[in-house]
């Protein structure tokens, strides 16, 4: 706490000096401010609860001071009280993030809060996503060295943010990445471009008493230091690219793996080919017990040291994200393939402007495991290539076609299989067929129209009497229209309607005004309950019925 006060004092003096003597000290201040509010009232049909405080508010202001190699920043956050779906433990306000940083050619040092990632993040990714209500910034010291051209070495130590506090676990890590073409002279002009990397992260946590499942009168003998390491290879050769990373984690009994001692491992391989008008990629992922938290007894979305990327295609359309896939950190095997082709203009399928066609498919299964016991045992055994429960499959065809100089149509058909077990619900398999039509029409310089129509046919059902309470279930029709007026205004209206085997009708309207870097948006309507997922990391979005507003600006 004393250190925090010292840092803040230093920052305040520096900013005060900058404001009062901009010409003497130089440097400049930038920042952005965002305010999101919500009012909602009870609606038993859609499952919206009453909001006793009437107004919920999330606000944040990021301020950054930069002066040559030196920078410092802070972020003020206020959740009074947090928007629906954000963890109530965010309630409060204050300086949530602060740092001072020095960045030169050979060395960078950050003291305070910082974000960092080693490789693809499988052993360490400290990051923030304001829409997920997720912030696992580290508070500590982060040093990056570039001793020679082509070699980067990172070292860090700190504790992770958890709402308005910091987890007790101490995270230490080192990572090195070598660009071989820069380091080895004979490779400098090679068509083959190679990058090698390796990292290691260790967390330390005090002992605690966790009962054994087999014998409640015994407690677990916990590893206080848990390590995770990874090696990675990235390769470029002409049109081909290979990205790969293998990670392994030591014994890490924790709440999320039910306190078992099985070591974790993960492999991610991504091969792609790309040339003008054609691209293809194949991605494979294997995860086995790789949830890695800095506090072993913490469930929930916070305090993850690592990040396991999603393998399925990330869509933005409502119907395609109705049943999003949640990465299973305890174990999954997955494959994704995508081919994108552009039919040239002037051809039969290309027409006057050309046509883009994308085929994508992914499938994800759980591990094929043999159970060995609960807390205080190895947990299970599993083979690398064995397939367990079917979690998710999708296959989609997307066609983007410019119909006229100012008219673009995107059409998508997608078939999905979704197992609610990935959300912790009873296992099953929903089969969904989804069709999306999206039309952008720039009428003239002042007016743009945007239409979206979506349909989803699903064998999932909403029937509370039978215990089927998922309000996303059933067959849906969705419509959206948006009118943009000049550079400043937009008006939109949308509706989502469960017309068969489902429940709820979710109309909403919105208006927005943009001026320079300032944007104000006001909406009114119903929000369907569901999950908001970004990169396989999700948070629940409860149903709501009422007003929302958002204001953002930067300077």
């Amino acid at each position, binding site marked *: 706490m004393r250190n925090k006060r010292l840092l803040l004092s230093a920052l305040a003096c520096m900013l005060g000096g900058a404001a009062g003597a901009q010409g003497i000290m130089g440097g400049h201040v930038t920042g952005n401010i965002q305010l999101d509010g919500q009012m909602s009232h009870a609606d038993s049909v859609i499952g919206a609860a009453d909001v006793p405080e009437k107004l919920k508010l999330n606000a944040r202001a990021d301020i950054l001071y930069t002066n040559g190699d030196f920078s410092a920043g802070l972020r003020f956050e206020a959740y009074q009280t947090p928007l629906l779906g954000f963890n109530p433990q965010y309630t409060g306000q204050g300086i949530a993030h602060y740092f001072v940083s020095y960045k030169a050619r050979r060395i960078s040092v950050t003291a305070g809060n910082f974000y960092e990632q080693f490789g693809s993040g499988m052993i360490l990714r400290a990051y923030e996503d304001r829409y997920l209500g997720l912030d696992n910034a580290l508070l500590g010291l982060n040093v990056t*060295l570039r001793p020679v051209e082509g070699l980067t070495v990172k070292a860090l130590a700190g504790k992770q943010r958890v709402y308005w506090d910091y987890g007790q676990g101490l995270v230490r890590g080192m990572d090195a990445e070598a660009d071989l073409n820069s380091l080895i002279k004979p490779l400098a002009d090679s068509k083959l471009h190679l990058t090698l990397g390796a990292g290691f992260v260790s967390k330390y946590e005090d002992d605690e008493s966790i009962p054994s499942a087999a014998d409640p009168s015994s407690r677990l003998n*916990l590893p206080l230091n848990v*390590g995770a390491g990874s090696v990675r290879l990235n390769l470029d050769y002409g049109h081909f690219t290979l990205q790969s990373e293998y990670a392994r984690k030591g014994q890490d009994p924790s709440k999320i793996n039910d306190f078992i001692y099985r070591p974790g491992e993960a492999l991610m391989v991504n091969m792609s080919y790309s040339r003008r008008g054609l691209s293809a990629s194949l991605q494979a992922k294997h995860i086995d017990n790789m949830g890695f938290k800095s506090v072993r007894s913490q469930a929930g979305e916070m305090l993850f040291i690592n990040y396991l990327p999603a393998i399925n295609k990330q869509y933005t359309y409502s119907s395609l994200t109705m049943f999003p896939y949640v990465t299973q950190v305890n174990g999954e095997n997955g494959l994704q393939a995508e081919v994108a082709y552009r039919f040239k203009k002037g051809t039969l399928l290309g027409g006057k402007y050309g046509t883009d066609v994308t085929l994508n498919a992914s499938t994800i299964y759980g591990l094929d495991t043999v159970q060995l016991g609960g807390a205080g045992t190895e947990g299970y055994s599993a083979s690398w290539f064995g397939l367990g429960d079917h979690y998710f499959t999708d296959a989609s065809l997307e066609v983007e076609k410019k119909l006229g100089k100012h008219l673009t149509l995107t059409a998508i058909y997608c078939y999905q299989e979704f197992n609610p077990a990935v959300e912790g619900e009873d296992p099953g398999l929903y089969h969904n067929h989804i069709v999306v039509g999206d039309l952008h029409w720039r009428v003239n310089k002042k007016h743009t129209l945007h239409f979206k129509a979506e349909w989803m046919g699903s064998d999932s059902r909403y029937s509370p009497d039978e215990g089927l309470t998922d309000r996303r279930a059933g067959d849906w029709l969705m419509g959206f229209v948006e009118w943009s007026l000049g550079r400043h205004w937009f008006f939109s209206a949308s509706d989502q309607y469960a017309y068969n085997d489902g429940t709820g009708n979710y109309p909403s309207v919105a208006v927005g005004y943009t001026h320079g870097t300032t944007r104000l948006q006001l909406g009114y309507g119903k929000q369907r309950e569901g999950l908001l997922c970004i990169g396989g990391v999700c948070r629940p979005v409860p149903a709501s019925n009422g007003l929302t507003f958002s204001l953002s600006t930067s300077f």
Partner: protein
Amino acid sequence: MKRTILILASAALLFAACDKISPDSFTQSASGGGSNWTNANVHRAYVEKYTGPKCKNCPMADVTLDAAHHQFGDQLIIISVNHPTGQGVPWAGEPDLRTDDGSAWSQYFGISELPSAYLNRGTHQYTGSMGEIVADIEAAINQTPQAGIAVNATASGDTISISVDVELFSQFNDGLTLTLALTEDSLVYKQSMPQGEPDENYVHNHMLRDVITNTWGEDIPMDGLAGEHKVGQFSYTVTNNDIRLENCHIVALLARKSDRSIVNCAETTVN
């Protein structure tokens, strides 16, 4: 060269920072372990609900909490506290369920609206039908317990002998208190309803009848170290003849002394 040595030395230190436990050492004997221990290591949620017989919306909260109790079973412990004033004042000729201890609790939280509730005596006040409390209860239950607690109660005549086991799983730097409360189910008396006339035969459950310890509990003589275990014995004589012991429970609340938040709790019938 010096820099390279420094980097390599740091890396070596870091790689050493990984413990490996052999399979025959995954578990060790717990330091404690009383007769109730198999119940003690469960994390339970505690809801302290403030209610009143003239509160029209209180039955709505009862619906929510009854459903939650059905969902979470004995991992959810509820105490209904009759608010001392306003809508908490009993109807004429009806039993008075207000207690001095309950009034002190109500005053501490500054209760001015009924129904109100606190989960584990946290900072968030739930009001109205309290729909959002269910998810919070689930989240609280899913947390790993920082301490275990179990309670046993046997009656001989009007005297109840109570045994409480407490074991700390984590370190506590501030003091802990133990509060024992007597609650009673199946009390039938007049209650205002959200619509229409009051229900003359409304069934009230989890009603606070008395606090056996001090209002905010007794200090527990522990050092706050992980692994510490204490067994406490208490005796209580029921003096209110309206109380039917067969409908009663003893609730044990383990709380932090500093902010009175609940660490864990347990409940037992009176045998």
